[in-house]
């Protein structure tokens, strides 16, 4: 009697673990923290496991076009997911914007509460931004400075991190007095002063997600993308300082 119960339980366990599957997800570095929370909740709700890799979107794109075993791509921009679709590496109908990044001027040395005035005054030697050709937050930073008419004056002071994470690090270690970072990076950070750059000064940093061809038949991958669109994930994304569509 007991044995049959045990066998039944074991059977049920095996059945459920057969349904639960893994999905491998390439996540843009700036989305690291929310992605971890979302993956944990996703695992709780569906039993599927999301295996996350974090890195620069550009590097991921290169890897994906060379057969990297990712099934979902959460990019820091909208260009690369589109390029992945055009290159035949991703499914066009799966494309959507999962978060919209916000740009912040941050300093641990000077007061940037009024960021525009601080940038105009220029009382600093180094201004840290993400690489503007590779990282969308870097592009946005350059756009914002141009919109303020300050780019030419500030350009000699610019230092570039290869990613937004490094731009943050330069400001955090105070090697650069000021820097443009992502609002999401300042989640839980109380140090320093900050100025949220008005969204009229730069084009929206749309972070798009896409299902890759390798994940076309993966239930877990599709479930993750659905979950990412759902209210629970959206609440997490907003809490970390992103805007939503």
């Amino acid at each position, binding site marked *: 009697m007991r044995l049959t119960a045990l066998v039944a339980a074991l059977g049920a366990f095996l059945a459920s673990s057969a349904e639960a599957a893994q999905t491998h997800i390439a996540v843009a570095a700036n989305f690291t923290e929310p992605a971890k929370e979302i993956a944990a909740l996703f695992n709780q709700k569906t039993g599927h496991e999301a295996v996350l890799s974090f890195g*620069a979107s*550009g*590097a991921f*794109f*290169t890897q994906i076009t060379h057969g990297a075993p990712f099934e979902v791509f959460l990019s820091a921009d909208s260009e690369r997911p589109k*390029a992945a679709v055009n290159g035949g590496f991703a499914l066009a109908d799966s494309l959507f914007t999962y978060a919209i990044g916000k740009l912040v001027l941050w300093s641990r040395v000077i007061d940037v509460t009024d960021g525009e005035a601080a940038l105009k005054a220029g009382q600093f*030697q*180094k201004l*840290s931004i993400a*690489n503007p*050709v*590779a990282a969308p937050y870097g592009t946005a930073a350059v756009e914002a400075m141009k919109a303020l008419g300050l780019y030419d004056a500030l350009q000699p002071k*610019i*230092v*570039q*991190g*290869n990613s937004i994470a*490094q731009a943050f*690090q*330069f400001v955090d*270690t*105070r*090697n*650069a*007095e000021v820097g443009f970072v992502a609002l999401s990076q300042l989640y839980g950070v109380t140090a320093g002063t900050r100025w949220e750059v008005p969204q009229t000064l730069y084009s929206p940093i749309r972070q798009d997600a896409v299902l890759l061809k390798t994940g076309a038949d993966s239930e877990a991958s599709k479930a993750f993308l659905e979950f990412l669109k759902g209210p629970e994930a959206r609440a997490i994304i907003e809490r970390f300082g992103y805007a939503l569509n």
Partner: protein
Amino acid sequence: MLGLPSDIWVPIQLTIELAAITTLSLLVVATPLAWWLARSRAAWKEGVAAIVSLPIVLPPTVLGFYLLILLGPDGPGGAIASLWGARTLAFTFTGLVIGSIVSSMPFVVQPIRNAFAAIGDRPLEVAATLRASPRRAFWTVALPLASPGLLTGAVLGFAHTVGEFGVVLMIGGNIPGRTRVMSTAIFDFVETMRWRDANMLAGGMVVFAFAVILSMILLEKRFARARA
């Protein structure tokens, strides 16, 4: 120059400059250090040798991270930079030279130390009986005898500095003409899908590395034959 676009040519020039200055500085610093490591009987010298060798084992990110802090406003680098009104040595060519010296040090110290050790006591004792002062014996006997080791160290130090990526990426700030060297330029080209340009630089690096290693092997052979 050479018909190359400036965003390819400038990093090449900067890299050669960086590697040359680093190698010269390293020869000046590493030779006495290697001499001491080879000759001293101090028990703690292997501790020093281990510290010098750390960059071989540590990932460049670890070196780069500590260098960023040491060169920064809270570290000694910031204090030095304040002499000319700057706040940090990070993001400067000087900072890159310091970082490259640290990370390439073991590749220069090791062959020179081995060369000094291989000389043994004998030639120096002979020099002493001929009334050469220790200093004179070092310059006229030890250094010429160790010259293959010095050459090996210089070549390896130069090559390793050219190939340095992690440290430069962590402390450089990617400033064109000042801290954007070949390895970071390649990274940029790959990131921005300029694969043709990346290929050009990366291919050049492969050829360079091959030439360095081949010439090392041939040099070793020649010196071995000369000794025999």
